[in-house]
C-alpha cells in the first residue's frame, strides 16, 4: 500500500503557502470540462461543492436526507475555534496548532494540524461574509468563549446552534451554485459503492432511496465527505442515518482505513432511559463550568432522591481525584471516570442490563452562589432540553449524565492533499482521519470540515485534475461500472430474499453489535475483551445475514433495507476497530488500554493513576489498514515525526 503523505518540509509556517504555489492550476476555460462527484453535504461536502462550482467545475452532489440542509453538522452546538486572538489573550496560530497536537495525544501530522490552525482565521471571515449570525458584543465586535477547558477564548458561536448556522451558510452557498446550474443536487440518494478503474476513482454507485433505482455516476474525481461512523455503536449522538457505508465501500475497493479504533466518547450526554432508546442527546460541555459531578458513596443510596443524600455521603470523584481541574477534566478522562464509578455500582438512574449508567451533574451550589436567574441566562435552553427529554426539572433535581459516542477521529487515510491512496479519491471532514490524532478538542471539527471544503480541496483537487486531465474511456458500459452495479444488485437481492423469512429486525442486530463494541471497544479496552469481541462480531454478522427480517422489496422506499445495508458495513468495520485497538498496544487519547495506565504515585497525595501511558517508541504512527478480502486485513504504518512539538505525557 502506497502511503506517501506528501507533507511539505521547511519552516512549518511556510509549508502550506509553498505547497499551494507548487500545486498546478486548471485554466478557467477548461474547468467546465471536469465533473467532480461530492458525496455529502455537511460542512465539508457543502463547502467543497459550492467552492468548486464557483470556480467553474461541474459538481454532482449527493446526500441521503431529503435536503442538503439536514446533514448532521447541523447538530453541533458549542462552537468553532479560530486563532483570531480577537480577545488579545495570547492566542496564536502556533498555540492552536500546539494544543491540537497535544490534545490528540501526539498521534496526528504536524503539517496538517498547522495548516488547520492557519486556515481557521479565514474560515471565520468567510462565514461572516456568508451571513452567519455569530454572537456579538455590545460594541458590535465578535464575541468569543473559552471551550473545553482552554485558557484562551477562541471559540466563535451562534447561541447553542453554531453547527446549524454554519451548515445553513454552506448550504446557501451550495444553493446559489445549484441555481447557477453548476451543481446538480441529488438528495435522498445513497452511495453504496465506489467505482475504481485502473487505480483511479472514476465514480460511484448509488441507490435512489425513493425509487430504489441503482445508478452509476461517473466523474473526474470523487470527494467523500460523508461524516463519522459513531453509529457503529448503535447508540450515539449521531443522527440515525449517519453511516460508514461510503468510506467502508471505498475501503473494500482499496482505500486505506486509518486508526479505526480512535472514537471519542463525550462525557455529558443524557443517559439512556430504556432499551427502546434510539439515540443519545448531547448536553453542551459548558455545563461542567458550573455543575458539580458526583455519585453516592454508598450503593444503597443510588436509588434515593439525590436531594436527601447528605454532603458527606456524596462522592465528587473528579474533584477528589483531580483537585486542580476538577469537573473540567478533558473529555476522555471525565468519561472514563464516570464509567468506573458506575461499574463499581455507584451509578444512578434506570438500571439497564444490570448497571445504572448515570452520574449527577448538580447545579445546587451554582444556583445558591449566582442565583437562579444567572444560571437560567447561561444554560436555560439546555435545561429546557433536558426537561423535555427526561421530564425532570434540573433547577430542582440534579441532572443525570453519562458518556456517549460522539465523534470518530479514525477514517479513510489521506495524504496532505486530502487524497486517499486511491488516485482521484479525496476524503474530507469527519470521514477522513487527518487532524485530530487520538482525541479531538472541542470546537475543532467544524473548523476542520470548513477548512477542508472551502480552503484545501479547491487547490488540491485542481492539482489532481491538472496533472491527470479529464477521464476518458469510462462510460456506463465499462466492465468495472457494470460489475459494480451487478454486485450492488446481488447484495440487495440477497437481503430482500433472506429478509422475507427472517426472524429479527435490523435494529435487533445493530443493538447487539453496538453493545459488544461499547463494552469491549468503548471507553476502555483490554486484550481479553478485544479478542472476545473479535470472535463474537463475525458470528453475529453471520447470524444477521441469515436471519434479518426485512419486509418489502428493493424497488421502493424501504427503510429497513437501507438500514440493513448500513449495518452490514458496520459489522465489518466493528471487526476492524477491535483489531486496530488490539494491535495498538498502548494507551493514547481516547484509546485506553487497561494494560497501559499510570499507577498511583505514593509520593503524591491524592494520586489515583489511571491515565494513559503512551508508547512512542512503538506507536508514534498512524495505523493504516488494507482490506484483504472478507474479514481479512493487513496493517501498515505511516510514521509520525515531530519537529515543533515536544512529546510529553499529559498530566493533571
Amino acid at each position, binding site marked *: 500500500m502506497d502511503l506517501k503523505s506528501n507533507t511539505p518540509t521547511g519552516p512549518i509556517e511556510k509549508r502550506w503557502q509553498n505547497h499551494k504555489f507548487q500545486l498546478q492550476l486548471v485554466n478557467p476555460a477548461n474547468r467546465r470540462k471536469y465533473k467532480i462527484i461530492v458525496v455529502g453535504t455537511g460542512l465539508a461536502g457543502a463547502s467543497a461543492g459550492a467552492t468548486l462550482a464557483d470556480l467553474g467545475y461541474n459538481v454532482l452532489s449527493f446526500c441521503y436526507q431529503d435536503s442538503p440542509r439536514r446533514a448532521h453538522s447541523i447538530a453541533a452546538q458549542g462552537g468553532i475555534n479560530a486563532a483570531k486572538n480577537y480577545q488579545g489573550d495570547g492566542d496564536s496560530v502556533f498555540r492552536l496548532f500546539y494544543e491540537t497536537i497535544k490534545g490528540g495525544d501526539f498521534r496526528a501530522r504536524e503539517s496538517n494540524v498547522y495548516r488547520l490552525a492557519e486556515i481557521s482565521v479565514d474560515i471565520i471571515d468567510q462565514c461572516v461574509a456568508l451571513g452567519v449570525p455569530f454572537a456579538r458584543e455590545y460594541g458590535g465586535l465578535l464575541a468569543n468563549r473559552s471551550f473545553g477547558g482552554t485558557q484562551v477564548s477562541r471559540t466563535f458561536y451562534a447561541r447553542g446552534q453554531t453547527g446549524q448556522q454554519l451548515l445553513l451558510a454552506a448550504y446557501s452557498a451550495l444553493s446559489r451554485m445549484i441555481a447557477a446550474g453548476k451543481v446538480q443536487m441529488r438528495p435522498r440518494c445513497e452511495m453504496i459503492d465506489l467505482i475504481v478503474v485502473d487505480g483511479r476513482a472514476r465514480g460511484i454507485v448509488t441507490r435512489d432511496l425513493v425509487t430504489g433505482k441503482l445508478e452509476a455516476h461517473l466523474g473526474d474525481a470523487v470527494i467523500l465527505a460523508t461524516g463519522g461512523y459513531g453509529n457503529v455503536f448503535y447508540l450515539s449522538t449521531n443522527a440515525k442515518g449517519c453511516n460508514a457505508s461510503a468510506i467502508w465501500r471505498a475501503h473494500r475497493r482499496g482505500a486505506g482505513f486509518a486508526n479505526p479504533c480512535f472514537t471519542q466518547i463525550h462525557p455529558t450526554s443524557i443517559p439512556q432511559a430504556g432499551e427502546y432508546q434510539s439515540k443519545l442527546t448531547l448536553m453542551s460541555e459548558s455545563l461542567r463550568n458550573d455543575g458539580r459531578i458526583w455519585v453516592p458513596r454508598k450503593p444503597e443510596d443510588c436509588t434515593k432522591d439525590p436531594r436527601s443524600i447528605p454532603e458527606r455521603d456524596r462522592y465528587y470523584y473528579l474533584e477528589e481525584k483531580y483537585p486542580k481541574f476538577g469537573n473540567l477534566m478533558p473529555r476522555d478522562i471525565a468519561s472514563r471516570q464516570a464509567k468506573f464509578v458506575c461499574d463499581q455500582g455507584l451509578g444512578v438512574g434506570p438500571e439497564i442490563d444490570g448497571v445504572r449508567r448515570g452520574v449527577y451533574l448538580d447545579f445546587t451550589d451554582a444556583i445558591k452562589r449566582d442565583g437562579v436567574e444567572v444560571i437560567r441566562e447561561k444554560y436555560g435552553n439546555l435545561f429546557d432540553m433536558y426537561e423535555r427529554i427526561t421530564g425532570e426539572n434540573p433547577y430542582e433535581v440534579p441532572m443525570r449524565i453519562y458518556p456517549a459516542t460522539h465523534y470518530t477521529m479514525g477514517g479513510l487515510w489521506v495524504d496532505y492533499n486530502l487524497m486517499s491512496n486511491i488516485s482521484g479519491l479525496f476524503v474530507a471532514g469527519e470521514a477522513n482521519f487527518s487532524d485530530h490524532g487520538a482525541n479531538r478538542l472541542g470546537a475543532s471539527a467544524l473548523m476542520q470540515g470548513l477548512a477542508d471544503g472551502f480552503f484545501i480541496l479547491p487547490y488540491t483537487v485542481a492539482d489532481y485534475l491538472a496533472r491527470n486531465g479529464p477521464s476518458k474511456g469510462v462510460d456506463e458500459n465499462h466492465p468495472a461500472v457494470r460489475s459494480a452495479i451487478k454486485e450492488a444488485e446481488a447484495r440487495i437481492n440477497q437481503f430482500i430474499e433472506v429478509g422475507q423469512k427472517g426472524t429479527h*429486525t435490523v435494529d435487533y442486530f445493530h443493538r447487539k453489535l453496538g453493545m459488544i463494541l461499547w463494552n469491549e471497544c468503548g471507553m476502555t479496552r483490554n486484550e481479553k475483551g478485544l479478542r472476545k469481541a473479535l470472535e463474537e462480531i463475525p458470528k453475529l454478522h453471520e447470524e444477521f445475514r441469515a436471519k434479518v427480517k426485512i419486509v418489502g422489496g428493493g424497488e421502493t422506499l424501504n427503510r429497513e433495507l437501507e438500514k440493513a445495508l448500513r449495518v452490514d458495513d458496520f459489522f465489518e468495520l466493528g471487526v476492524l476497530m477491535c483489531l486496530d485497538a488490539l494491535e495498538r498496544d498502548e494507551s493514547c487519547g481516547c484509546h485506553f488500554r487497561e494494560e497501559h495506565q499510570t499507577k498511583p504515585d505514593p509520593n503524591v497525595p491524592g494520586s489515583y493513576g489511571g491515565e494513559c501511558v503512551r508508547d512512542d517508541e512503538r506507536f508514534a504512527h498512524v495505523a493504516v489498514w488494507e482490506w484483504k478480502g472478507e474479514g481479512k486485513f493487513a496493517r501498515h504504518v505511516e510514521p509520525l515525526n515531530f519537529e515543533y512539538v515536544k512529546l510529553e505525557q499529559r498530566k493533571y
Partner: protein
Amino acid sequence: MGETIDLKLHVWRQSGPNAPGRFEDYTHYAKAIPTHASFLEFLDIVNERLILAGIEPIAFDHDCREGICGMCGVVINGRPHGPRKATTTCQLHMRHFRNGEEIWVEPWRAKAFPIVKDLIVDRSAFDRIIQAGGYITARVGSAPDANAILIPKQVAEEAMDAAACIGCGACVAACPNGSASLFVAAKLGHFNSLPQGKPELDRRVLGMVTQHEKEGFGGCSNHYLCEAACPKEISVKWIAKMNRDFIRASLRYAPPVERKEGYG
C-alpha cells in the same frame, strides 16, 4: 422499567404519491409503550412489531432526533408536531399522552408538499425557494476580516431569531392556505437584517417570494397558526417585514444591465 401506556393508534398509510391513502388501526401494536420514549421511538416500537408480523413498517422521515435537522414532522391529532409548544415530533415524549388515548397520525398536508410515502412528504420546494435568492454572494477568498463589519449585538440577536428556522414545514401544514410565508420570511429576516445581506436585499425578496408562489404555496391571510406550530417559535412579525420589503423592492428594483467594458 418505568411506566407504560396503551394507545389507540391510527396511522395514514399511502404507498406512493398517486396511490389512494387511508388510516390504518394499529391499536394492537401500540400497547405497553414506555412513557419515557419519544414519539418517534413509539413509532419505532410499533414498526418493530409490524415488521415481525410481516407488515410493511410505517415510513416516516427523521434523522437527528434532537430537534434541529428539521427532517421529522407529522401531524398528531390535527396538530403539526403534536400537542407540545416549541417541540418537534422527535422531541415529543409519550409522557404527554394518557393511557388509552386515541392518536391519529398523518403527513403534512399541502399542495406544494406531495406525499412520497405514508408520512413522508416532498419538501424540495423549500430548497428551490432558497435557490431563488436565499443566500449572500461571497466567493471564497473575497471576505474581509470578520471584525471589519461591526454588527450591533441587538441586530445579530434579531437575525439569529429568524435564522433559527429548521425548515421542517410545520408552518405550511398548520396554515389553512398552505402558505410557506413564515419559512420565506424567516430566511429573508435573517439575511436582510444583517449589513452583509443588504446589497442583494431587493433581488432576494423578489426572487424568493416569486418562487414561493410558483411552487403552489398559498398566500398569508393572517391566521398566524404558523407561529403557534413552529417548533422554533419564529415570530410572524417577519412576515410583515417581508411584505414591506417586497413592496419596496417591486417599486424600485431593476435588474442590473450587464455592461461590457470596452478596452479600446
